[in-house]
């Protein structure tokens, strides 16, 4: 694939506990191109989160190879916003800069400009408990973007929200990721969410997970998630993915 920034080759991951060993991934192969939005769906407990931890380099695979393009950095976004309640939104957003020791005035300005651009300007000196769930998740996204990562790893970032907020936040996050030209790898168990945001969907099998199918969705890039849901092809994709998941 051209412009590839992340590649998994025959990656196998085995977890060890005193009770025994669990194979989470088996011979998993896929790659992600620059600027792509990839969604990974699979049955619950199939080791989806493991993929993100492996990509971010937090754990090492038992076998196989993971190649990350030189200089590519990752930003991680989790199910809950995980904003630190004792920090203001501004301080939360600047956290990655503090950790990476890149807390320079220019970087700070870039991050805060981003916050202002996406409607958090009035909340910078607020504390997380003063924000709604949707705004909190947006703040979490801006925090993820603050260190300007090339690729975003999204671990079911909408699943803790109520349904209405979830659709809106999904639209929101999609818009921001697209306009910032980021590559994204989204893990989800929600088929329609995957179809509404992704360029390409990977369907994983039950544990130990391997790729059952890869689907190029071919929706226009600028089409928003909520708009996609109204498309005729949407339900067709839903059926195909649903059937593949339930083999």
């Amino acid at each position: 694939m051209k412009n590839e920034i992340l590649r998994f080759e025959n990656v196998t991951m085995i977890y060890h506990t005193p009770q025994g060993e669990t194979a989470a991934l088996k011979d998993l192969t896929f790659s992600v191109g620059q600027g792509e939005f990839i969604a990974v769906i699979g049955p619950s407990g199939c080791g989806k989160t493991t993929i993100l931890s492996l990509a971010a380099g937090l754990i090492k695979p038992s076998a196989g190879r993971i190649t990350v393009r030189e200089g590519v950095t990752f930003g991680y976004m989790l199910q809950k916003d995980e904003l630190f309640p004792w920090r203001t939104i501004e301080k939360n957003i600047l956290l990655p800069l503090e950790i990476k020791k890149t807390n320079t005035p220019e970087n700070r300005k870039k991050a805060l400009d981003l916050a202002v651009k996406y409607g958090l300007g009035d909340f910078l000196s607020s504390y997380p408990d003063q924000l709604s769930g949707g705004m909190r998740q947006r703040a979490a996204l801006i925090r993820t973007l603050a260190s300007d990562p090339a690729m975003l790893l999204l671990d079911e970032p909408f699943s803790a929200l109520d349904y209405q907020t979830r659709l809106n936040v999904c639209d929101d996050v999609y818009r921001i990721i697209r306009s910032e030209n980021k590559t994204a790898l989204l893990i989800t168990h929600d088929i329609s969410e995957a179809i509404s945001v992704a360029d390409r969907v990977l369907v994983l099998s039950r544990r130990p997970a391997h790729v059952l199918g890869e689907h190029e969705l071919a929706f226009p890039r600028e089409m928003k998630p909520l708009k996609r849901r109204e498309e005729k092809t949407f339900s067709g994709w839903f059926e195909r993915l649903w059937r593949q998941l339930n083999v």
Partner: protein
Amino acid sequence: MKHKRENFSEEHLLYLRKLKRTDLTVQISRILLLVLLLGVWELLADFEIVNPFITSSPSRICTTIASLYREGTLFYHIGVTLGETLAGFAIAVVGGYLIALVLWWSDLLRKILEPYIVVLNSLPKIALGPLIIIWCGTGSEAIVAITVLIGIIIAIMNMLSGFVSTDKNKILLLQSMGAGKLQILQKLVIPSSLPAFISMLKINVGMAWIGSIMGEYIVSKAGLGYLIVYGGQVFKLDLVMAATVILCLLAGVMYFLVVLLEKIAVKNDRR
């Protein structure tokens, strides 16, 4: 939706008034209860319905405190006990915090030391009294040592459980940003364990007083605990009561200071 004060509805104003009234009732009742208890005690003693030699009385306690003050020993005894308590409290809190940090840092060390901590925790520290007198002498050092022993294990256990219960997902988040263990400690573990720290302080205020008074029971030449033991031995129950009352006041003030600290900390902390 919150309204400004001037646009409160009639019903809301009524609700506020009711809140205020309840608050006032509680405050007044508290004071009345104290006055009532002291009054009944005083009258029972004055009319010798109970033997004031055994039960003492509020007026006799006041006289005793006044005479201690005239002799110039009142603040000396308070100072001795307060000094021992504060020193023991500070060493136990700081030492316990640091040891808990080390145990959080090293899983292996924590596992190795766990049974020792459990045994030390269940051991009545006062059993070590004779040893401490031999090791530290019969001065204030021994009393501080006993106070530290009583407080430090609890400080360690409270802080350790506070540190260990740090949100795993937040740790994962920091790791994904490339944070090392020291950064996780600074940015997450220490700030998020603030409530555990405050509750540990509250528990240790009580522990420090237990430690210093117990210590003075075993070995002392001065202090409030000394006055209580001495008063008991020579059957001067006015002295015992007077020292106890002062002790109550001091412990109350110290606890109140911790609560004040908590208020300040929580105001800057919101969770």
